């Protein structure tokens, strides 16, 4: 393999692949050539991940292309047929076509989803089936399949499904150009960790293949640098500590693998590690998004934001509207709405309204849809009970939050208690952050059982010795971390208050701007946790 990279922050990507991709793109005078180059670089990026794995995204695009055209043809035929059909027969004709369209949609969604389920979840399902069969017979075991996962399969499968759903709902027109569809599916800055783009949002700007403008280039690079600070300075520097505490940290000591066990840590260290992991996850994932959006901007592509300062959220529900926004929006549009608008759930809501009133009644139907969302959300994050628990944990928290919201509203109306005053807001922000950290502890724990054990240890293990703990970070590392997290907090606070930090910097005199960027670049180069002695954190969302 010519190039190998594990993340968008790999030197191979940053120093070689990306500059070549940008420079060649900028030098190409014709739009078509730029499109072909973007497509070529994207497929090459995929090919580098594993030659054979490219076939999956090609198949997925082919299904999406054919499915879209088929659905589009049915729409056209229906429109043509409706013109010559008497009014009283129109309803029946629409129903007939609707049924056909549903079958076509179901068929292609099954193909798209089938690939994902087989490649990603078959091992999990077979393992659980074996465990179940083991209850009845000791000798019956199915062979557990192991597949190599193509990079970003969950992301591009969701993009393909959203395209098919949108064509089905006539929100978008099906595209005959398979090249355009392939570029939408494989655009290299987004393919590893998202965001999950919608056809209506990005396809056009991608296919436009605009020339690289000075403004897009500088603003894009600015964002790439910001992503590097988050990932290389914060996430990677936290990595040894997080890995130490959460176990599974196999370190070659004298050529023998040493496994650190969380049982060696007192509760407060586990709690600290859960906070550190949450911070690391945020820095890594949002840093990767800065990278994706920054590179997208250089190519003139409009990519949706995936984060909006989630740690300023007042509730878990709000948190998920600010964290991994494109995933939440996908589940909202393609799971929550269809489930809550389905016949049985509507009936349930109607009955609940009668019994519980207009405030609590709608919560019942909404909860059914919410349950479906969080089961899928948990499974999307990984094939394991930890992830299902992670989904259910958030489902319960959001459900309780919805109920508490109604009760608090009543309470506020009766007592005049104000929920938007600063101390209450700060309390709610902190409470949300604590709940998020608890969820992430289970998310990161190697197994669900270990997750519970670690959580329990926070409240029970006070006496363990700390002298033997391998922290993985020293005081100087900690100083760098605190400084960088402080900068991240201030920038987030300014953005939260509506101040556009990026444009402000871009508006400064050239000398000030240059000095600022030199300082920022040297900051990453010097204080980044890379090179000998460091193990960079894996892109946490790349396998989803």
């Amino acid at each position, binding site marked *: 393999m010519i190039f190998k990279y594990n993340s968008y922050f790999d030197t191979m990507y940053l*120093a070689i692949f990306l500059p070549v991709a940008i420079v060649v793109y900028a030098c190409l005078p014709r739009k078509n050539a730029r499109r072909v180059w973007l497509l070529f670089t994207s497929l090459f990026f995929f090919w580098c991940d594993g030659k054979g794995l490219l076939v999956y995204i090609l198949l997925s695009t082919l299904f999406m292309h054919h499915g879209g055209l088929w659905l589009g043809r049915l729409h056209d035929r229906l429109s043509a047929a409706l013109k010559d059909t008497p009014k009283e027969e129109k309803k029946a004709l629409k129903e007939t076509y609707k049924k056909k369209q549903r079958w076509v949609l179901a068929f292609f969604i099954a193909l798209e989803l089938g690939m994902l389920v087989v490649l990603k979840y078959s091992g999990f399902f077979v393992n659980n089936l074996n465990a179940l069969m083991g209850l009845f017979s000791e000798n019956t075991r199915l062979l557990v399949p192991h597949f190599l996962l193509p990079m970003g399969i969950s992301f591009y499968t969701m993009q393909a499904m959203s395209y098919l759903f949108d064509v089905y709902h006539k929100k978008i027109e099906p595209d005959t150009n398979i090249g355009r569809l392939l570029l939408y599916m494989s655009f290299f800055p987004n393919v590893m960790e998202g965001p999950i783009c919608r056809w209506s949002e990005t396809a056009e700007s991608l296919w436009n293949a605009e020339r690289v403008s000075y403004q897009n280039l500088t603003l894009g690079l600015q964002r790439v640098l910001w992503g590097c600070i988050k990932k290389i300075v914060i996430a990677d520097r936290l990595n040894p500590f997080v890995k130490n505490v959460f176990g599974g940290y196999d370190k070659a000591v004298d050529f023998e693998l040493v496994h650190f066990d969380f049982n060696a840590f007192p509760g407060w260290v586990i709690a600290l590690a859960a906070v550190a992991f949450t911070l690391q996850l945020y820095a890594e994932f949002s840093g990767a998004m800065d990278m994706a959006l920054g590179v997208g901007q250089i190519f003139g592509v409009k990519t949706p934001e995936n984060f909006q300062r989630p740690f300023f959220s007042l509730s878990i529900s709000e948190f998920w509207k600010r964290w991994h926004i494109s995933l939440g929006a996908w589940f909202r549009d393609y799971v929550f709405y269809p489930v809550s608008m389905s016949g049985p759930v509507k009936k349930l809501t109607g009955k609940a309204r009668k019994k519980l009133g207009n405030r609590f009644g709608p919560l019942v139907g909404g909860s059914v849809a919410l349950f479906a969302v969080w089961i899928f959300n948990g499974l999307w994050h990984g094939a394991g009970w930890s992830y299902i628990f992670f989904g259910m944990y958030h489902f319960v928290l959001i459900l309780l939050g919805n109920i508490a919201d109604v009760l608090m509203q009543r309470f506020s109306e009766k007592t005049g208690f104000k929920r938007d005053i600063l101390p209450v807001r700060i309390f709610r922000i902190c409470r949300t952050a604590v709940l998020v950290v608890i969820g992430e502890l289970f998310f990161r724990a190697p197994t669900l059982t270990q997750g519970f054990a670690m959580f329990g240890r926070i409240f029970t293990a006070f006496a363990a010795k700390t002298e033997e703990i391998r922290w993985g970070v020293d005081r100087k590392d900690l100083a760098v971390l605190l400084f960088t997290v402080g900068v991240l907090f201030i920038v987030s606070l300014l953005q939260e208050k509506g101040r556009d930090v990026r444009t402000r910097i871009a508006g400064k005199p050239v000398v000030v701007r240059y000095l600022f960027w030199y300082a920022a670049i040297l900051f990453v180069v010097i204080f980044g946790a890379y090179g*000998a002695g460091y193990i960079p954190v894996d892109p946490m969302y790349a396998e989803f």
Partner: protein
Amino acid sequence: MKKHTISFVIFVVGLVGLLVLSGFVFIPKNNTAEAGILDVGANGILGEPENTIDTLFVGDSLAYCAFMPLHIWEQTGSTSYVCATDLQQLQYTVEMVEHALSRQTPGVVFMEADAIYRDVSAATLLYSKIYNAFSVFRYHDRWKNLTVKDFTEKQSFTSRDDERGYRRFSDSKPAEVRDYMAPTDEVMPISDLNRELVGQIRDLCVEKGARFVLVSVPSMKNWSMARHNGIAALAESLEVDYLDLNMPGTVEIDWRADTRDRGDHMMYTGAVKVTDYILSYLEENNLLRDHRGDPAYNDWNEALQRVKNKPLT
């Protein structure tokens, strides 16, 4: 647009200048661990007086566990050094040989062949060149220990490694004995890039008047007949000697006693056997020089004494 292009070029030039300048600050000023040098054992060669090393060994961990310069000194009075590092990649081997040959004139360079089967890509080479051009990338982590001297002092290498790059391990973890060198015609392929890099190392040696020899030290875990065939073919094409100490009739390794980690690396007793074999090759080919009476080489005797006095670990 022209204005923007000029402005952008000025920015990039300024950045490159800054990175180069900061490299001067961050690069270690001595070849000691305290000064922040990486691969301390291998870089100990920088502290050896010029033109005092007769034999050079390069390679990965298999090499630093198997070749014992002090044993060669004790037996023959000939000097040698092991420039071996963990998971050494060939582009780094080229660097090591370049650095060593810029100050030393060994008569022979032995290259342990395990690294030849380690993946190297064109991108890795470029990446390595970037690291070399801008030392700040390689030594950035020294920010924790920077002093005023780092801004003012020039590099001066004064440290010498007693073991001359060899790493002594005296605990044995026996391997399950198996015939890992079963005869086969299978040839494990070597990538073109790796062939080219080995060729570069050979050319460097030839240019400096050193014989270049490929060698495979015993390693049940890493070696096989297919690999032997691959390296033998490469040696033939490069017209260099190839010593495979995994082959029957070369070195009698007791896999229950001579390995430190179940057949992967040699422990002390295995290293003695390997070094004795190398000694016989050096003798046969008149590549040994005896410096025992020369006071300029006193440090070798002192180092030998220090090592002998150290308890085996």
